[in-house]
């Protein structure tokens, strides 16, 4: 597969109004740089996953997009205006990380909380529509402190979309959810994004990013290290593992083979990461390296993720 960095931004349409734009924005906490000269543009209607390990700068990025934090340098635009104005106009919804707290007010029913959330926005979606979208019809008469982890997140999602926002930010929305809750949450979100809304969610669940998002933006140390559809990201880095057994493996020789990105040797067992497994196998034969038990497997997004965040930038890097 050809690996042209420009091919990674398939969803970008020239001239389309960006839903959000980071232009060399940085933010630091004391001497710790959380977001470092970040450049990112998301078009209206895209569903984008912000993928990265803990401490990569995902939450800071979302806080900057909501105007909760200000960039120390660079600029950020949301829906053609400043983050604070976009929020004040009621065009943005968000589900933030809450740590151990539920993020919901105590001593009140779910229905009343959602009613309040609607009244805080100038053009809210009808109550029933939001209830339906978030699938919380059965929870409306429940007190907010009598909800399971998954139910809390559904209610918080309802609050995030109560104002019928054009743009939604979700910071690790499925944290504390079990598998079933997670599945129904993403189903809900996919339905919502199909209505033409822009969604940006942070996650460190690689499969979620891959399956839900049109586009995966990998960030680490506050910078974009990769940007593209999940499938393409996987193809970008050691997309195949080539395993075989070899009498006397020579690391230098193996490393020099066509397509090889990394070499692991455990006794006689050799695992090569390769961008082009066919070429690597042909090179093995050509160089008369005696191998047995050859096995070629695809690398998961997991491997791609590790490769990306550990070092080399791929795609449109900042």
């Amino acid at each position, binding site marked *: 597969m050809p690996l042209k960095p420009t091919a990674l931004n398939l969803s970008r349409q020239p001239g389309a109004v960006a839903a959000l734009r980071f232009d060399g924005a940085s933010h630091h906490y004391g001497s710790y740089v959380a977001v470092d000269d970040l450049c990112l543009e998301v078009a209206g209607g895209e569903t984008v996953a912000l993928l990265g390990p803990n401490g990569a700068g995902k939450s800071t990025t979302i806080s900057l997009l909501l105007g909760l934090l200000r960039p120390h340098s660079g600029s950020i635009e949301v829906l053609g205006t400043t983050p604070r104005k976009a929020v004040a106009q009621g065009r943005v919804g968000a589900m*933030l990380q809450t740590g151990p707290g539920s*993020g919901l007010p105590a001593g009140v029913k779910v229905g009343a909380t959602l009613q309040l959330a609607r009244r805080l926005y100038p053009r809210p979606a009808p109550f029933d529509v939001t209830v339906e979208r978030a699938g919380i019809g059965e929870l409306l008469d429940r007190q907010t402190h009598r909800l399971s982890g998954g139910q809390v997140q559904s209610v918080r999602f309802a609050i995030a979309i109560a104002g019928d926002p054009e743009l939604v930010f979700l910071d690790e929305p499925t944290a504390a959810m079990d598998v079933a809750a997670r599945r129904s949450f993403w189903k809900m979100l996919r339905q919502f994004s199909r209505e033409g809304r822009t969604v940006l969610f942070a996650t460190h669940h690689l499969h979620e990013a891959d399956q839900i998002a049109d586009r995966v933006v990998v960030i680490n140390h506050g910078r974009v290290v990769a940007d593209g559809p999940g499938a393409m990201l996987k193809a970008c880095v050691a997309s195949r593992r080539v395993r075989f057994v070899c009498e006397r493996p020579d690391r230098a020789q193996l490393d020099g083979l066509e397509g090889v990105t990394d070499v692991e040797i455990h006794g006689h067992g050799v695992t090569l990461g390769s961008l082009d497994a066919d070429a690597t196998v042909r090179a093995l034969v050509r160089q008369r390296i005696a191998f047995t038990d050859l096995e070629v497997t695809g690398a998961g997004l997991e491997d791609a993720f590790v490769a990306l965040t550990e070092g080399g930038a791929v795609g449109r890097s900042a």
Partner: protein
Amino acid sequence: MTASLVAFGRFEVGRLLRSWKFLIITVGFPVTFYMLFLGNQSSGTLVDSVSWRAYLMVTMCSFGALVAGLTAGGARLSAERASGWARQLRVTPIPAWSYVVTKVAASMLVILPVMVLVDVVGAVFGGVNLSIGNWFGLTAVMWASALPFALLGVFVGYLVNAETAFPVVIALMFVLGYFGGLFDPLANMPSALQTAAKALPSYHNASLGVAFLDGQGFDAQHWIVLGGYALVLSAAILLKHRVEEGRGLA
């Protein structure tokens, strides 16, 4: 935006008035103490030229306001800020200042019925007899000058975390209550404590009520001290709010 803020205010007041814990503490304390202390002095006793029954009603109005203000803010507010709800509100269209202003306003709104209830208890059980105008006047003066209690509760909620807020609230309730002369007339206290009381908002709030009843006019120092408390506490809350806002927390 006004409609949003009204909705938010109603939501806050509704939550307070539906909270059994809040009602039992704020209504239970002043009413119980009124009934308990009523017999401490013989019915003919005059304190500051006001009958003991009326005097105690005034100080229990102050105490009720103090307890309501501290409880409405305090641990509730602290826990709510920790839960992430306060932050969620920050990403809705209502302005940043509206959260804290609504909290103070909601505290003031729930202080009023507490005072009225103590008035009713004073009238029914204490036999306090005032003209309609004086009932209104007394309550209005005491309510308006109870603003420092509402601010103090919100300040505690901003200053300390939910676990420490509870003991801090209890301590403030009894320090301001006892040393402010709300349980026992100040004249019965040693002179050092009498001097100390004059630094406390609880003393001045109750004194305004007593001054209203004895009809000899208000001493400006009461308003000055209470106004000073309101200003300092507002500034402290604002400062704390700004710091947290800068960190993306508020």
